[in-house]
Structures are given as C-alpha cells and as structure tokens.
C-alpha cells in the first residue's frame, strides 16, 4: 500500500516536473538516466558501474541514478518500473537473470522510455523493440585474439615449421569456455597458424589448482610442447606454476590467458605469462551510457553495440595494471 502511494507520489511529482520542463523548454535540457545493476559487490561490475558514473560526472546536464538489484529479479523489475514512473529519459539494465528481460523490455516500451542492456546478453536480444539496445563485448573476440597472438609469437620465435600446444578449458557448462575453445581451434585451422598442433585439451574448471595438477600430469608424459593456451588467466597461472616447479624455461614456452587480472599482469611482469585479453568493464559502462543518451535524443543506435576486447602483451601491459 505504502509502495503504491510512493509510486503515485512519484508519478505526480514527475508529471509536475514534466509540465514544468515543457513550459520552460530551457535550452539546457538535463537528462536523467536510471541504472539498475545486478549486484554492487561484484568486482567486474563495480568497475563497469564506476566507468558509467565517471563519464556522467564529466558531462554537462547528465544525471544518473544507480540502483543495486542485489541479484533479485523481482527487485530489478520494481526498480525499472520506478524509473519509468519517475520519468527518467533512459534506463540502463545489467540484468540479474538474462532470461527474465522480456518483461523489462515490455515495461520500458509501453512507457516509451529507451532501454539499454549492458554486459549480460538479454534473451530477447534479437527481438529488441525500437529504442532498445545491448552493449557488451563480443565473446568471439577474446579467444581469437589470444590464440592468434600466441600463433604470431610462436612464428616470431621461429617455430613456424611446427609447434605443439596444450589447451586448458574452463567450466564446460559455461558458454564462454565453449566459445573460447572453439575460437582457439578456429585460429589453429587458419593457414597462417596451421603449424600449431593441439596435443590435448582438458578442463580445469577455471581453477588455478586444477590447472596446476592438469599441467603436471601433462608434463609427466614427457611430451615436448611450445605453448599453453588457457581459457582464463587463473588456469594459465596454474599451468605456469606447474611448469616452473618442473624447472621448465618459461622463455621458451608461450602461455596465454584471458581476463587481464592483477595476478595475471604480475605474472606477465615476471616474464611468465605472454598473452592475455582485457575485457573493458569501464568501456562497457561508458558505452552503455552513450547509447542510452543517444536513444534519449531520438538518435539511431545499433541493436548490438560491441566494446572491443583488448589484447594485452608485455608491450602494453602497463596501461592495464590498475584497470580490472
């Protein structure tokens, strides 16, 4: 009951503001964007959120209001309805449950408020109504960037005559692990990288511990190899620890991961990790705000906006040390 009353009050208030705004039609029209994040305590999402907030602070006449859905689908839908009721110019949603986005799209569409999904792909991504968009990174890029750089490094080391690699996969029930592994296989089947032969691929469940044991098991077969291509940095670090324990020369082995975590960058500084891929959290945050503001002005925005993954090697790693 109380909730409804506050909602009513909000609607009244927003109607009043609306009337006021239309009457005055001031040249500086402040834009308000409501943001509902799936969770505030997630590391990656926090960087994303801060990217958004920082961008808004640097702009004139843009106000953003960020809410925490605390991983609660129902709470998130309430927040969106509240945003609609309070007359925001656009809404950004980082979905708690990507299969529950249809209701959100409907709510925003019926109210005529632009809606942008960020980072997590909504289930209705291919049927988004006009005035809605999805901003994220394209998962196909990460594995491809990683494997291709490993291929180039092996070539630079003069191993184009033939090289052998192990692939460490993430949790096989996770789409990113399956996609990244497929990307690695695609790269290795290209003419330029055909010289790489994958000896074996196994899962480490994303974990450093399991990757360490897996690598030691591989080492015990005595097979020589030139590269280890992992689905994530943690697995790559586990493999590095196992190889160092066995006394291998890390200069001669190319190791690749994905994520550009702090631990990974330290391993890269030590000369152990050679390649990783940075998922631009802050860039996704800024990109979603950009899309939301454009939609609010009635401009066209692509249904899917992809923020590129960035390849990280010893050459450019200093830029990433304080990012994710």
């Amino acid at each position, binding site marked *: 009951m109380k909730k409804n009353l506050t909602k009513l009050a909000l609607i009244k208030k927003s109607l009043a503001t609306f009337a006021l705004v239309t009457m005055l039609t001031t040249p500086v029209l402040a834009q308000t964007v409501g943001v509902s994040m799936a969770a505030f305590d997630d590391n990656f999402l926090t960087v994303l959120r801060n990217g958004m907030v920082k961008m808004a602070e640097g702009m004139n006449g843009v106000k953003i209001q960020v809410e925490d859905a605390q991983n609660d689908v129902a709470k998130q839908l309430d927040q969106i309805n509240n945003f609609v009721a309070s007359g925001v110019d656009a809404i950004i949603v980082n979905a708690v449950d990507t299969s529950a986005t249809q209701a959100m799209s409907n709510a925003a569409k019926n109210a005529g408020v632009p809606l942008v999904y960020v980072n997590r792909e909504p289930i209705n991504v291919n049927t988004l109504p006009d005035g809605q968009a999805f901003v994220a990174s394209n998962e196909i890029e990460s594995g491809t960037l990683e494997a291709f750089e490993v291929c180039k490094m092996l070539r630079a080391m003069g191993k184009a005559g033939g090289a052998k690699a192990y692939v460490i996969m993430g949790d096989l029930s996770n789409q990113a692990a399956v996609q990244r592994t497929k990307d690695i296989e695609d790269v290795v089947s290209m003419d330029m990288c055909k010289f790489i032969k994958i000896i074996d691929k196994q899962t480490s469940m994303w974990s450093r*511990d399991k990757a360490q044991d897996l690598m030691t098991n591989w*080492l*015990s077969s005595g097979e020589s190899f030139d590269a280890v291509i992992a689905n994530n940095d943690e697995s790559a670090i586990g493999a590095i620890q196992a190889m160092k324990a066995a006394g291998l020369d890390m200069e001669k082995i190319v190791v690749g991961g994905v994520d550009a975590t702090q631990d990974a960058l*330290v391993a890269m500084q030590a000369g152990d990790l050679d390649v990783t891929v940075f998922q631009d959290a802050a860039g996704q945050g800024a990109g979603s705000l950009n899309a939301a503001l454009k939609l609010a002005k009635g401009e066209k925005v692509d249904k899917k906006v992809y923020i590129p993954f960035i390849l990280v090697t010893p050459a450019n790693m200093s830029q990433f*040390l304080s990012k994710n």
Partner: protein
Amino acid sequence: MADSKHGIGGLKYDTSKRHWPNEANVFIALILIVLVFEGLGLFTQGNSFLFDSKGRFDSIFNEQRLKIIILQVSIVGIIAIGVTQVIILGGIDLSSGSIVGATAMIAMSFAQVAEVNGSPNPKAIFLEQGWVDLPLIIPLIIGLFCGIIAGGINGLLIAYTRIPPFIATLGMMVTGRGVAKWWSKGRPISFPTEDFTLIGNGFGGWMPVVIFISLAILFFLILKFTVYGKHTYAIGSNEEAARMSGIDVNRHKVLVYTIAGILAALAALVLSSKNLTAQSGMGVMYELDAIAMTVIGGVSLSGGRGSIFGTVLGSLIFGVIISGFTFLRLDAYYQEMVKGIIIVGAVVLDQWRQRRVASRA
C-alpha cells in the same frame, strides 16, 4: 591352528573363518587399475603409465607421474583423514569443502606481502591497517583457529542438539561458503609472503605429500593404539553400548568433529599456499571427494569399521584415475563418469563382502 589366539579379549576363533583385511582388497583394486592403464597405454600410446619408457629418468619409474599421482590427492587426502574418523564414528561431514574456502580466504588475508614488483600489493586486504608481511605463525594460527571453530560448532550441534550430522554439517557447508564469499566481497586474495608459500611448496614441491603422509601415519597409530581410537570405533559400532560402558559419547563427538575441522583448515592452508592465492570458490566438492576416497578405501558408511590406511589407498586410486585419464588423453567427462562408477562399485563390493562374512561367521 584352530586353537590360536586371535580376536578381542582372548576370544578364540577358527582361523579358517578369518578373512582378508579389507585394505588388502583395496590394494588389489589399486594394482588392477594401474595394470589396466598400463595395458591401455601400451596399446594406444605405445607408452608406459608408471615406468620410464622414454629414458627420461635415472630410475625405472616415471618419477614425475608417481609424484603427481600422490601430489594431486594430498590436499583432499588431508581432509579425508578427518572425514575417515567422522565416518568411523558413524557420522558424516559435508562441511569440509566450505571450511577450506573460508579458512583459505581468512588465513591468506593475514599472509600477504606489502609490495608486489615495487608497487603496493593490489590484492592486500589489510594494507591500511598495516597487517602485511606478518610472520608465518599468524596466518597459521588464525587458519587452524577457523578449523577449530567450524569443526567445534559441528560437533556441539551434533552432540547436544541431537540433529543428524548430515543436517548440521550441511548447515556449516552453506554458512562456510557464505563466509568465504563475504570475507573479501568475492574478490580473490593473492600474493602471500615467501614463508607462507612454503606450506604448499616446500621440499621441492613435496610438502603437501609430506604433510598428508605424516598425518596419515600419525592418525593411523592414534586410531589403532589409543583410547581416542578405541572410543571412536566403539561409538561407531554401537553408540548405545558405548554410552552404557561409560564413554562420554558427546564429548568424544565434539572432539572428532573438531579434529576434522582442523584437518580441513590445514588443507586450506596447504591449498592456498600451493596456489599462491585464496578464492571464495576454493574447495567446492572437496567434501564429496574426501568421502569418496574414504568409502573406496573400505571405510563403512554405517560406522565402526575401516582405517586411515584404507583411506590412503582410496586416495591413491583417485590419483591413479585422474592421471591415467590424462595419460590416455581421454576427456574429463569420462573421468567423472568412471569416478562415479568406482565409488558405487566400491560400496556394492563392500556390502557383498560383509554379507558373505556374516553368513560364514
């Protein structure tokens, strides 16, 4: 030889009715599994599983493989030593994996260095408080204390509220995982001090094995020769009879669960040290692996029977299977399927054997 003295309290029994110790069966199973891998290896890879077929080592064995077989089960093995005692007592402990997660997070945050590559440790939890570069003893004590608390609560709940061990430790499993995630709000904790890394990497990487085997011998002897051990078996065989004969069953239960908690905490220290990091997802499913090792090792889930030696053999069977499948380059899927079949198979065999023994006696 029918008059020879075997059995408890001078009771005589016919040696023709004696049966193999259960551990002998487990050992035979271990040898058989090794032979299967050895055969498949020669057949499909032209390579030996345990022997040095490429002339890489000075001995006839593939030393590296022998090492990883035991190294990869040492940490869960440490947990399994505690779980074995709990199961002999007639209980169960589902919380060990979560105790590992929570302890790793809490202990590691007191084991961090101040600087990494010249800049402040980006993962330091207590950098502002200045609690970095602390001596090894501090994370060690804090870690083991976590185990005492968690295991102690398990024991107290089971002994004094009389809720089933399954439920009490299930609660601790969920709560412990929550603590692990809450401690640093889900962020990994990395970059430990040089001293701390020795717990999991000392002795040229053999440290986890050294800890596992020493503890296994210690608790094998304790269970066999001390009052503590005799009471554990007695309560597991028949709790009421144990109580009647004057054993303080409740106190003993608290003790056994606390020891299991301490062993899980120790496993956490070894694990986080070996990996140079602590993460809230550490130790997931370890409780089930530890229970499986115990059961494969011939420890009866109904309590009162089994030994740490059996559990060590069970853990080796685990290690051989993991290494064997990687050796044959079979996918991880099959590994899990076979693991499941072996667990069930071990219990079925044990039941069958028990019935046979019962019908002979």
